[in-house]
């Protein structure tokens, strides 16, 4: 294991419904500190399941997940994870500030420390001035920014994001993509990011893990060597288009390997 390896997934399989459905088969994946890794693939390829396995929200049927040199469970108990779901999952009865402070509260931070950190985090996601608003008073994009601030508030070593911008419109999504990159550069955290948008995966990531379905497995890994920091200009870079094409081809090859439709239906 290299010194700065953060996530190590070894020989992991996951079966649901008493073994009837194989969500993931023989997954090996290593993620080092500071990487931004996207998991991409069609629905049913197990990309969310893989993310949840890393975060110990579910357990593997076979194989091991090691995070920061310890078991995923231990890492969760040590609060190594910040999680962002597709829905912001804010608590309606808490103000924006108190939502961001929730993990700090659970970690036993003092009131003054919490207030200070919340201010800092809201500045980071450009929501200063909205401390005392309630979630329902914010737009979907703003809610998701609160959710990101909450996930980062206790400086977890890994940020797990499960299609965080999937429910947002294209404009908001692109803006939040840039914002997320800025935050990632500021905090230096390791990010595992699930998406089904090729453009988003290529724009954000240092590495794109292409997955294929039934059973879910890693079809290809595409390193993204676009220059940092990435800007609006990156989206017009010829290299960007090349990489988008590579990921798309990898996705199609993954799908072609799929069993013929007739046999799939037979099951």
């Amino acid at each position, binding site marked *: 294991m290299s010194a700065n390896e953060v996530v190590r997934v070894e020989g992991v399989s996951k079966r649901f419904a008493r073994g009837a459905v194989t969500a993931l088969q023989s997954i090996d994946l290593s993620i080092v500190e500071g990487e931004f890794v996207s998991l991409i693939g069609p629905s049913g390829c197990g990309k969310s399941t893989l993310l949840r396995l890393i975060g110990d929200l579910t357990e593997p049927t076979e194989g091991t997940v090691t995070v920061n040199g310890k078991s995923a469970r231990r890492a969760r108990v040590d609060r190594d994870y910040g999680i962002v779901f597709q829905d912001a*999952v804010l608590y309606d009865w808490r103000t924006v500030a108190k939502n961001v402070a929730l993990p700090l509260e659970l970690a036993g931070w003092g009131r003054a420390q919490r207030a200070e950190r919340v201010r800092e985090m809201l500045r980071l996601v450009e929501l200063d001035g909205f401390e005392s608003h309630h979630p329902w008073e914010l737009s979907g994009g703003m809610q998701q920014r609160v959710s990101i601030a909450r996930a980062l508030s206790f400086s977890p070593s890994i940020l797990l994001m499960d299609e965080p911008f999937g429910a947002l419109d294209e404009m908001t999504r692109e803006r939040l993509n840039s914002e997320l990159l800025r935050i990632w550069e500021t905090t230096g955290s390791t990010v595992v990011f699930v998406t089904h948008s090729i453009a988003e995966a290529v724009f954000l990531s240092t590495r794109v893990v292409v997955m294929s379905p039934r059973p879910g497995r890693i079809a290809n890994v595409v390193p993204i060597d676009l220059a940092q920091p990435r800007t609006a200009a990156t989206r017009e870079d010829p290299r960007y288009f090349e990489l988008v094409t590579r990921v798309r081809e990898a996705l199609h090859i993954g799908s072609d390997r799929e069993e013929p439709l007739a046999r799939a239906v037979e099951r």
Partner: protein
Amino acid sequence: MAAIASERPVLRSARLRGGGGQLALVLAVALALWGLWEGYRWIWVKTGFSWPFPVNDTTLPHVHTIVQALFVSPQVGGPWLLTTLFHNALFTAKEAAAGFALGAIIGFTLGVVLAHSGILERGFLPYIVASQTIPILAIAPMVVVWVNPRLPDPLANWGAVAVIAAYLTFFPVVINTLRGLQSVDPQALELMRSYAASRWTVLWKLRVPAAMPYLFAALKIAATASVVGAIIGELPSAISGGLGGAIINFAQYYSFQPQNLWATNLIAALLGIAFFLVIVFVERLVVHRPPEELV
């Protein structure tokens, strides 16, 4: 941001207008009901209809007769009926409030326990439901016999009535606490899991706050039920200090002075409404929800 800035004042003014408008609406409905009462009376008396019952000053006294009765002494030289009933209402309110608190605490605790154990929930819920099918009039005398001899002096007599009120109160609270605690969004639970939160933390930081709207819906039902429970509890326990005693008393004189019983009903209804409004008020302080979700 611009959208937010323009949305907020609209919400606020809608709320304000809601407050004033609500009061006007309630008054308008009260007037309409008065009109309906007197109109019904007038038509039935005028035409001599006797279905479903003949209408006269005994069966359906004038509204103003009922209200006037409040400002007359039932006994020569005694206080106004309103004064007497006010004291009765305070007495019943004490029983109902104690019963409400007791029932709410028991109901909430039971709800929490059942929410954490599927076996207990499946085992006990049928009996909790069955408890409410027993007519309260049948158990009230038993409760009085059991509870009264054991009560310390300050609770003498009325403590048993509070227990009867609690019996009616706890049921909606158990059911809704249970539902509310189980209503939590699975992702919100996963978030707590990712923070390695204990069961206790999940209960107080997530499940209970999420259950608040359910809990308050139950408390509103329970608040009025506790008043009914207290009044019914007074009947078999021969307690004369409350509205139950007044009802028994005035029922005996109904054919001579029906307005006194009606006036007592009016005060009992106002007491129930007062209890309800207290809960609504507390809910507004405690529960922060999108305005359209507030009752």
